[in-house]
């Protein structure tokens, strides 16, 4: 550990120190606005430190962490997403919750966990990151503890995530038994010609991460947790938590050169196809928007696996671009849900969205844009994201996966359109039954507007974003 190491570690150290300081301050001085502002400032500071730190060369900090372009890109993405979640949380908590301040240190800790996960190059740091993220999420999901569904969701997540962690640890143990190392690069060196035990260990490891990613058949918790958690926390799980886990598994499997292990590739292909079909088909049957987005997120991780299995630089760029698009989209979608939610519960049922366009045209337009992006329609980032996935898939001749992607995208259209149709239904239908609406909080309004602009901008002028992803992410190999 040198001073240079500390310098490169600064973004994470800031995230580590701030929650401690904040907790002490909260004990003496409870002020929602101040806490939110401090959280935002912390995330921004961390972001600035990260981006100005440079990413040209890969930088190892002991055996545990590596700060290369890949880490920098995904950590930056996570930090921005956390900022958006913070901005969306403030008005939401104002409207719904009594004690609000502790929420923010938890959010910071969860962000720290996700960042460590992305930057880890060792099983110890991987597990640490995953658990830091997980444990703060248990608390965040159950944060509104007077609401029963929150507590239920929190318990479900706790138990199933613990099972996932157990699998993960077991997988690590098996890999260690075979290769004698916990450090990624050394594992990769001894992976050549490794036996059944190693394969089994990797598979078990993927099961553990699969829980976090909610891949079929490890997806049981998703719908309940998405539904039960407060809307901004759901946005955090859908974006930061899943994105970090995916970035990790992508790094691990790419360094492992997964194309050397056809069995593993076959297993992952099966999981991807199952996720696409099950996610989309189950989403078809939902009448609850949060549950629908939960199942759709299962499908979207399935789509991402297409790019992962492509094992090409193109695939890595596709993952980077798709994650950016998905982050923007899903944060925007849950942002709208959060704005519409009140003290009596989140706006979940599709019925509550009926005629939204005549009551709140701009909010309806934002949600409409997000749904079109999830469906992959042009002018949105989601379109180019899906396009990139198809390019990566066909480039590596993964026909089964590409065809599954096409077929399930068509299925998926149906439920995204259902939300849009409900919002744009003629106003005379059931309008009187709905309560008068309040004004959109300024903070949420601005955040959602910015997200929509970014959505369209990356959808029609993606050149700069692709350049950033290219220079950072693909430096891996």
């Amino acid at each position, binding site marked *: 550990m040198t001073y240079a190491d500390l310098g490169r570690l600064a973004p994470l150290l800031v995230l580590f120190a701030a929650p401690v300081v904040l907790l002490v301050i909260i004990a003496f001085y409870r002020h929602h606005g101040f806490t939110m502002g401090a959280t935002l400032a912390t995330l921004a500071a961390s972001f600035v430190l990260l981006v100005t730190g440079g990413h040209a060369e890969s930088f190892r900090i002991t055996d545990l962490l590596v700060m290369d372009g890949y880490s920098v890109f995904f950590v930056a993405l996570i930090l921005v997403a956390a900022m958006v979640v913070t901005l969306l949380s403030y008005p939401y908590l104002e409207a719904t919750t009594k004690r609000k301040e502790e929420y923010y240190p938890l959010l910071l800790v969860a962000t720290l966990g996700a960042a460590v996960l992305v930057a880890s190059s060792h099983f110890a740091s991987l597990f640490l990151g995953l658990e830091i993220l997980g444990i703060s999420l248990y608390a965040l999901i159950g944060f509104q503890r007077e609401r029963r569904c929150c507590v239920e969701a929190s318990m479900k997540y706790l138990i199933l995530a613990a099972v996932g962690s157990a699998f993960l640890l077991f997988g690590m143990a098996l890999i260690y038994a075979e290769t004698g190392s916990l450090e990624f690069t050394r594992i990769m060196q001894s992976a050549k010609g490794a036996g059944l035990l190693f394969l089994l260990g990797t598979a078990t490891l993927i099961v553990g991460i699969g829980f976090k990613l909610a891949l079929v058949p490890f997806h049981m918790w998703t719908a309940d947790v998405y539904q039960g958690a407060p809307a901004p926390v759901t946005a955090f799980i859908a974006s930061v938590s899943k994105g970090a886990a995916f970035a990790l598994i992508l790094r691990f499997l790419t360094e492992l050169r997964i194309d050397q292990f056809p069995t593993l590739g076959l297993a992952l292909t099966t999981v991807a196809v199952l996720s696409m079909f099950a996610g989309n088909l189950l989403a078809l049957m939902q009448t609850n928007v949060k549950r629908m987005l939960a199942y759709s997120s299962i499908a979207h991780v399935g789509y991402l696996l297409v790019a992962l299995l492509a094992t090409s630089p193109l695939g890595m760029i596709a993952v980077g671009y798709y994650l950016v698009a998905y982050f923007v989209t899903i944060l925007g979608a849950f942002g709208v849900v959060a704005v519409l939610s009140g003290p009596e519960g989140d706006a979940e049922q599709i019925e509550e969205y009926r005629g939204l366009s005549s009551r709140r045209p701009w909010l309806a337009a934002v949600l409409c844009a997000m749904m079109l992006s999830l469906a992959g*329609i042009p002018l949105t980032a989601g379109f180019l994201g899906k*396009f990139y996935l*198809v390019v990566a898939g066909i480039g590596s001749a993964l026909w089964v996966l590409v065809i599954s992607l096409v077929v399930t*995208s068509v299925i998926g259209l149906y439920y995204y*359109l*259902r939300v849009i149709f409900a919002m744009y239904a*003629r106003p005379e239908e059931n309008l009187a039954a709905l309560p008068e609406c309040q004004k959109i909080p300024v903070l949420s309004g601005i955040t959602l507007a910015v997200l929509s602009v970014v959505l369209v901008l990356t959808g029609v002028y993606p050149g700069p974003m692709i350049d950033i992803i290219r220079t950072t992410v693909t430096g891996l190999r």
Partner: protein
Amino acid sequence: MTLEWLIIIPLAAALVNLVVPREQEGVARWISLAALAADLVVLLLIGGGNWSLPGERGLWMVQSNHQWIPQLGISLQFAMDGLSFVMLILTVLLGVASVVCSWTEITERVGFFHFNLMAVLSGIIGVFLSLDLFVFYFFWELMLVPMYFLIAIWGHENRKYAATKFFVFTQAGGLLLLAGIVALYFVHGNASGQYTFNYFEILQVQVTGRAGFFIMLAFIAGFAVKLPAIPVHTWLPDAHTEAPTAGSVILAGLLLKTGAYGIIRFVLPLFPSSVAEIAWTVNLVAVVGILYGAVLAFAQTDMKRLVAYTSVSHMGFVLLGLFSQSAMALQGAVMQMLCHGISTGALFILVGMLQERTHTRDMTRLGGLWDLAPRMSGVAMVFALASLGLPGLGNFVGEFLVMVGAYKTFPWLVVAAAIGLVLATIYALDLMRRLFFGPLKGSWSFADLSLREAVLTIPFVVAIVALGVFPGPVFRTVQPTVDSLAKAGKELHQVQSSLGEPSGNGAVVVKQSITSREIRWRMP
């Protein structure tokens, strides 16, 4: 003046319409009209400025190119040839008609309606101009969302079902098209070392063999849904019936044409050898569509549904013309595209006027309307006759040329298609009989065509008669495009004879220039 303006003007009008204040929504109608008029002026200026005697000018009247996503070899490559020009004229004119025909029909959310109308038109214009495969696909998909809204918000009773079905069908076709485009991108890139979506670059490589065949199937699947061909036509009757009048006009007049345009622009020149392999099958599908559409049209009691099924039948002729590998049939298909756009658009407008007056589309409740509204009935008569292929009206020229052109290669299919003309006579005359002749059913009383409606419908009558008796200018405008397709077929012939049979999945690079033109492809 460049081609981008043709797309930007309606798009800008769409955005302005979106923010028109709710109290003065009527302004949106004038904004749309002004935008379309401006578009027409630009179009005529570009067309006129680059006009010269046929034979002297090259294929492309005007081109423009800008960088867009260089990382993937995507550029905003626009170009206009005679075919695009003709289609664009049709687009703008039918656009004007759809604005005028919804003048009194649409009273709710007028601004948002015109946003969607202008957005779908700019998408269609983009499709007719793009010569980068990615950009083409981009506009192809862009047409869907506003069309979905037009049906889903301003449609009739069963609009949700129809709108969703329309979207799902066309999106499924679109994604297959996307897979085909990306596969072509890689096949071309692997063969030439240059990864690009540019049409002109991709045209340099003939993709043959199994790979070419499957990529062509993906393209055809995407275009067939829009066309529509049997058995992927089922969205059409629902969407046409439930859409508001303007939506039906745009669907029948323009959206269906994008499918045929795609086949001419991409399928025929890019995969000449695979097209030859599959031509018989496609033509069989086309003929089945002609007969099936005609029979079902006869069985309908819903006026709009009847007109919708006639579209299936008429577009069958277009498909037959496209895959007959004869210049004459190809010219006929283009003519049929134009005339079908005009005659079916007019029929939908007339049905819409009737529905606005009577609030029903059920023909069993109507009858004997001639005495009530003679002017409307007269106009309807013209288009019913056009629909059955009366000589002197445009549709006759198109259908006749298709059949004569295709007879040489597919005689029995043409014989079967000719039966479709008889069936067309039955359903068209039956429609007239049921609606306008006989004693007056019920106690309807409504006004005949108003001045606005007369101004709207008379140009359609003039156009369909003009195309019927004086089709030459259209043929001359489209001739270079037809010639270039003949050239592509010729080049393939040369390469195959110089290299022997193309191998399995191979892609053959074609760079020779052709000096002699094949006579068979020329118009007599």
